[in-house]
């Protein structure tokens, strides 16, 4: 029963995280949420008794992909208008609504 509760909460958190990755207005926040998403995916691989996949996901899903996204985010927002901070760009423009 405890195991089922663990499953259900993990799965609900995964879907909730995916939703927030796609709807949060701040792109940096979305990337950080995606890193956490990869981490929880690794937990669910462990639960499904796929340690091979969990190893790969632990290395790639949360580490490498997160670093790739952070680097790309910096490149896509850095030299747009002088030296603005990373996530101000998207936030300020979206917050008008």
């Amino acid at each position: 029963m405890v195991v089922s509760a663990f499953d259900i909460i993990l799965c609900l958190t995964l879907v909730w995280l995916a939703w927030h990755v796609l709807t949060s207005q701040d792109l940096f926040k979305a990337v950080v949420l995606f890193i956490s998403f990869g981490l929880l995916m690794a937990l669910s691989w462990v639960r499904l008794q796929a340690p091979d996949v969990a190893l790969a996901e632990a290395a790639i899903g949360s580490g490498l992909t997160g670093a790739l996204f952070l680097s790309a985010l910096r490149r896509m927002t850095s030299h747009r208008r002088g030296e603005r901070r990373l996530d101000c760009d998207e936030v300020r423009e979206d917050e008008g609504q």
Partner: protein
Amino acid sequence: MRCVKMKGSEASGKRRHISLLSLLSLVMLAGLSAALAWAFLTPGPDPLGLAHRVDAALAESGVESRVTAVLLNYRAYDTLLECFVLFLGVAIVWSLQPSRPVRQEPRVDPVLSSLVRLLVPLMVLVGGYLLWAGSSQAGGAFQAGAILGAAGVLLILTSSRLLSTMPKGLLAWGICLGLFFFLAVAVGAVALGGNFLEYRRSSATMIIIALEVVAAFSIGLSLAVFFGGSRPEEPSERTAAGRPPHGEGEEP
């Protein structure tokens, strides 16, 4: 979804248009999820899966780990094509990004540099362990390659000139090495009278271990190069360092 909304008054007409569109797509997505859930929950014929067949042939595969046996023996085509995908990805990334002069990075913090100095040898060690363990338990070329790639990313992060000072030919050969070695093994099997990618039982263990080592090296190098982004500079281009990054100053 919120992220389709736009700011500004002139966007209000467009916003209505977009909300209609997003409503339509929401309906379609709801229909799709209902259909998928129905297909998933409807009890079909119970699939037997391939576990029994994998177990039956495990003694002939040359390794004890079932996943490694599937990856590098039964379905070695997958891994071969994956090496090709990595090669293709590096080619695309290098051709998309013109080699850019390295920007002035912030000074490397002493804490960071000592952390990297501690972590990178540990990562290489764990990568080697996973590679070695891969033949009998979880682990193998992919996981080891991923960890080696992460170590490479750490090195690139602390010294951004690392990739640009490496000889480009060597880097390219290192990335292609996995693909070429795989192809050599496959063609060699044909030359020896077998099928494409078919190993003899007696030499299967050695071949798989060699393939794993080479594939892990190539995968790690490719992942690090992915993170490095742009193609390393040619020596002739390095004289042009100091020009502004591509695209800057074109803002209307």
